[in-house]
């Protein structure tokens, strides 16, 4: 078969690229609609026929979200809960992942399987007992009521990702460290951890996203206005008779931004973190 080598813009036109464009459009459309609608005036949000571009561009929805509905508070709550959970997951998870990946210990396989089972537990099944537990220890309506369960539920996946990453690091790294006189903790800190940053970032991005978007537990365990996180806050916008779509869109755009930035900044790490262990190198 002979390939025609096309030059200029023509080389970009082929079925594969077309397919990519269609898929990207398909995925981006709702996001576009979300962003576009957030800049429409409240009346134009539901206009018939629909407005494809916001005209006039209005910041009324953003104003309403922050001023009228106190979205800033929810945002802050989400940041506190998510950042705390992510830090805990990464610090506990990387140590656990290192131990499970590298240190000689009994019962590694059952432990790993247990972790896997825990991670596939449906949230709805645990939320009621969790509510009772939180009620008993008096944690309802507090940051720790979300931070602790978020940490627990995100740990298994993070441990798996990080363990796989640690497995990909040559054993000689640790052995050299041992001969050089580094303690296990020093080896972990100075030699293994810096080399595992992609794995750590991947686990971090996933945990952050999961905590940031979690709804059910946040609704059940922290329902007072002072501790509400973004997903619950947005869902409870408005009153039984009014659904302020424009405000909801505006708040959602703000909510998506941190995740967007996170994924954009760490995209290279995330891809390499997810594929590590697939090929031994």
């Amino acid at each position, binding site marked *: 078969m002979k390939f025609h080598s096309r030059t200029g813009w023509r080389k970009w036109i082929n079925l594969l690229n077309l397919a990519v464009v269609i898929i990207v459009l398909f995925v981006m459309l709702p996001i576009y609609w979300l962003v576009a609608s957030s800049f429409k005036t409240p009346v134009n949000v539901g206009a018939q026929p629909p407005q494809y571009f916001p005209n006039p561009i209005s910041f009324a929805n953003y104003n309403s979200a922050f001023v009228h509905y106190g979205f800033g508070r929810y945002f802050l709550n989400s940041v506190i809960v998510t950042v705390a959970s992510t830090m805990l997951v990464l610090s506990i998870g990387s140590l656990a992942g290192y131990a499970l990946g590298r240190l000689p210990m009994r019962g590694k396989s059952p432990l790993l399987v247990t972790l896997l089972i825990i991670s596939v537990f449906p949230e709805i099944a645990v939320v009621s007992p969790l509510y009772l537990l939180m009620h008993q220890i008096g944690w309802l309506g507090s940051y720790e009521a979300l931070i602790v369960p978020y940490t627990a539920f995100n740990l298994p996946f993070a441990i798996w990702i990080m363990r796989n990453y640690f497995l990909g690091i040559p054993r000689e790294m640790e052995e050299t460290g*041992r001969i050089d006189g580094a303690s296990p903790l020093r080896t972990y800190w100075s030699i293994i951890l810096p080399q595992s940053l992609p794995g750590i970032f991947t686990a971090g991005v996933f945990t952050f996203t999961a905590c940031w978007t979690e709804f059910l537990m946040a609704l059940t365990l922290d329902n007072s206005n002072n501790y509400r996180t973004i997903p619950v806050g947005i869902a409870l916008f408005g009153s039984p008779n009014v659904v302020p779509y424009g405000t909801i869109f505006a708040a959602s755009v703000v909510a998506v931004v941190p995740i967007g930035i996170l994924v954009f900044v760490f995209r290279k790490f995330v891809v390499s973190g997810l594929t590590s262990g697939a090929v031994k190198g």
Partner: protein
Amino acid sequence: MATISLKGLNKVYPNGFHAVHDLSLEVQEGEFMVLVGPSGCGKTTVLRMVAGLEDITSGDLRIGERVVNDIEPKDRDIAMVFQNYALYPHMTVADNIGFALKLRKLPKDEIRKKVEEAAEILGLTEWLDRKPKQLSGGQRQRVAMGRAIVREPSVFLMDEPLSNLDAKLRVKMRAEVRRIQERLGVATMYVTHDQIEAMTMGDRVAVLRDGRLLQCDTPQNLYEFPVNQFVGAFIGSPAMNLYQGELFDGGRSLKIGSQILELPEVVHLKKPTLMSYSGKGVTVGVRPESLKAASTSTTPGTVLSVQATLVEALGSELMVHFSFDAKVVKIEDIQDDEEEILTGSGEGVARIDPSVSVKAGDKLKFEVETEHLHFFDPDTGLSIY
């Protein structure tokens, strides 16, 4: 500086695999000892036991005067170079070399001074601020060496440190490693599966197979006086040709296939036991170097008629692969050299003068240097002397 002494060393893994059997070996001060053998022979395990990365099941390991069986690797005063170098990718060359010193909490100036000295010896001075990723294979290898020498250990351990390099660089680094070791005068244990590396680098070479030490001697002695047919075939490149033969006429005549060679008196002087094999089968070892193209003046009793199956012209010599009607003795685990072409190799190889004109398919006569033949007991494989 110190000696390394292994006495009756055994390694049995929890799954029952006996990796090292009763190994005893002494490495003198400043000596370069090479452990060589086919893959899976236990040579790396031995090295790792000396390093303290593997437990010792039984036996005594001494470094200097001290028994170090249960001493942590860091307290054994050793430095190890790994096959994949194990450089820390996130640290610069200087940090890599100085890491061990940093762990010892040496003052910064002193670390810098020692690192620079090591870099000077290895020609790495201008690369000190680079990351390993930015270095070539040979430079990385030198950084790994640097990390070892900067600690001024009493023992060097090297686990196939050159096998990740390309052939040309490997030859160059062989000499360089040797030069550095001689300059520092540190007892060194060096593991390789490459017998050429072993022969060219080692003061003494220890040949291992299946976790047992077969022979430990100078390269020349291994080549000339192998204890058994495995060592005979393993040492030397191309490998020694081994055939089933039969001695008769009081051990003065040797039949290989349908051809008969006359053994001169000097063979019997060197190998008196050979007489007792008269009338019995022996394994005959013929080194490729012991064959040369026969001329008109060649004594009839030393001629072997063969047919060439493949000729490799290497410029300085010809490798002639040939076949004749003798039964070949095969030994497991003997790997042909990577460089050797395997296709079409017949039942033997000769290394002859390139002025001889010969091509595949030709019938030709070799003159056998009968005084350099090796003889092995066909049952035990042990050399007959």
